[in-house]
């Protein structure tokens, strides 16, 4: 993925860096990533798309709307490839998406919405959904293998409370695990129903936070598991992700409810682990949220490090 510094992006658009920052504040676009030193890094695809739209636009709003539509064009391609069970074409669609975006944005803006669209069209008990989930699982696992592992002293234990791989919440959980790992954390996922030998695992893996992801497992199972973890590792902060509850205004009873968006959840989770207040998450489009029409279902995965 080609990236541009603020001055380069401004030059490409023939505007000043102040103008770019003004657009980011007002429209949430273009949405830069940040370097280690908190400098903005723009994706070339986003800037090129906006440059083309500005040539024929009558307002910044309409140009940004058009640029966003152009970038979203990858979603129908991926949906079409997965619906036709064409693995190569699906991989190529994600490759194309990655040419214009970071891994996090490609997952949130292309992969997850495509899968949710297939769930809407075909249902969660259908073969296309099962095929799409299998492909997405493979893709996300490949991305995790390529991600640097544990470059920061941050360890997160994910309690998997989803039903199985067909559970739509499982997709978002895998995305959260990938994002956390790419942010430098070491992530271990264990099913919340597996209590046997839990202490032995935790003797070698010292988590600094627990995330309980998914809403299939009952509260009793989750409470027993969390108690066993805290008995072995001490009092750790607990966060809930896609646990079926609505997001409260703030923390309640010491448990943090993470936002539904995997990237926003990852930001808050990292802040929780590092013990700092969560920084405001950059404006994102509502399309990354799953539509309310998809009933929450679940998954259970075997332990994976």
């Amino acid at each position: 993925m080609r990236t541009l510094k603020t001055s380069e992006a401004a030059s490409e658009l023939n505007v000043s860096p102040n103008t770019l920052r003004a657009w980011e504040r007002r429209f949430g676009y273009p949405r830069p990533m940040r370097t280690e030193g908190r400098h903005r890094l723009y994706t070339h695809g986003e800037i090129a798309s906006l440059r083309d739209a500005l040539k024929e636009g009558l307002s910044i709003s309409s140009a940004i709307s058009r640029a966003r539509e152009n970038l979203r064009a990858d979603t129908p391609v991926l949906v079409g490839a997965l619906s036709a069970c064409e693995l190569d074409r699906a991989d190529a669609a994600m490759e194309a998406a990655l040419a214009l975006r970071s891994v996090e944005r490609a997952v949130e803006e292309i992969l997850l919405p495509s899968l949710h669209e297939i769930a809407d069209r075909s249902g969660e008990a259908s073969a296309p959904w099962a095929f799409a989930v299998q492909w997405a699982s493979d893709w996300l696992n490949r991305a995790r293998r390529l991600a640097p592992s544990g470059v920061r002293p941050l360890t997160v234990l994910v309690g998997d409370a989803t039903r199985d791989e067909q559970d739509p919440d499982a997709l978002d959980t895998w995305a959260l695990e990938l994002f956390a790992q790419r942010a430098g954390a070491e992530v271990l996922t264990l099913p919340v129903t597996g209590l046997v030998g839990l202490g032995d695992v935790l003797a070698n893996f010292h988590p600094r936070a627990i995330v309980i992801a998914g809403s299939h497992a009952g509260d009793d199972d989750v409470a027993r598991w969390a108690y066993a973890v805290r008995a072995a590792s001490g009092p750790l902060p607990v966060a809930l992700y896609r646990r079926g509850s609505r997001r409260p205004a703030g923390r309640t009873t010491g448990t943090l409810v993470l936002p539904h968006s995997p990237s926003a959840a990852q930001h808050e989770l990292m802040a929780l682990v590092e013990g700092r207040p969560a920084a405001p998450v950059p404006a994102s489009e509502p399309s990354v949220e799953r539509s309310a029409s998809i009933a929450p279902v679940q998954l259970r995965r075997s332990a994976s490090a």
Partner: protein
Amino acid sequence: MTRPQLQVLPGYGETDVEPYVDFCGHCGKRQEAAAPASRVCGNCHLGLIVSAPGSLAPGAKEPFLIVDGRLQVCAVSRRAERLLGIAEADVVDRQLTDVLLPADAEAVGVEGFVSTIVHAARGDGIVRDLVVRPAGEWGIRWFTRIGPCATPSAVLIVLAPNG
């Protein structure tokens, strides 16, 4: 035998083309006469530079909208956002009639309003006056100037709340 010849009739081909002026499509600020290096307003950073005939271009405090030939809203000025209680991002690409409707007691339906805009989008160069009201509101009327603007070719609707 005399051959028929084309003749220029009085009044045709003699109309002066009114010079266009540049202004920002968001804050309305008039731009320098020289072609700007960038299409983005250097004053507010939030609007593109648009051109319109001098008599049509908005004054410093006049709210305005820009629509295309399909009657889709393309831009809403900052003052129009305040006057109409809308955000530009919310109404861009929506139909103009979702925002403004004709309010002329003499007019029959929206046809006159629509045809005025369609003619302006074709670039007939004539600035027309119409009376409009906000969609879904009664008892409020604004005089408007409607005419062509560029680039690309579109229609500028300047609202004059004070008549």
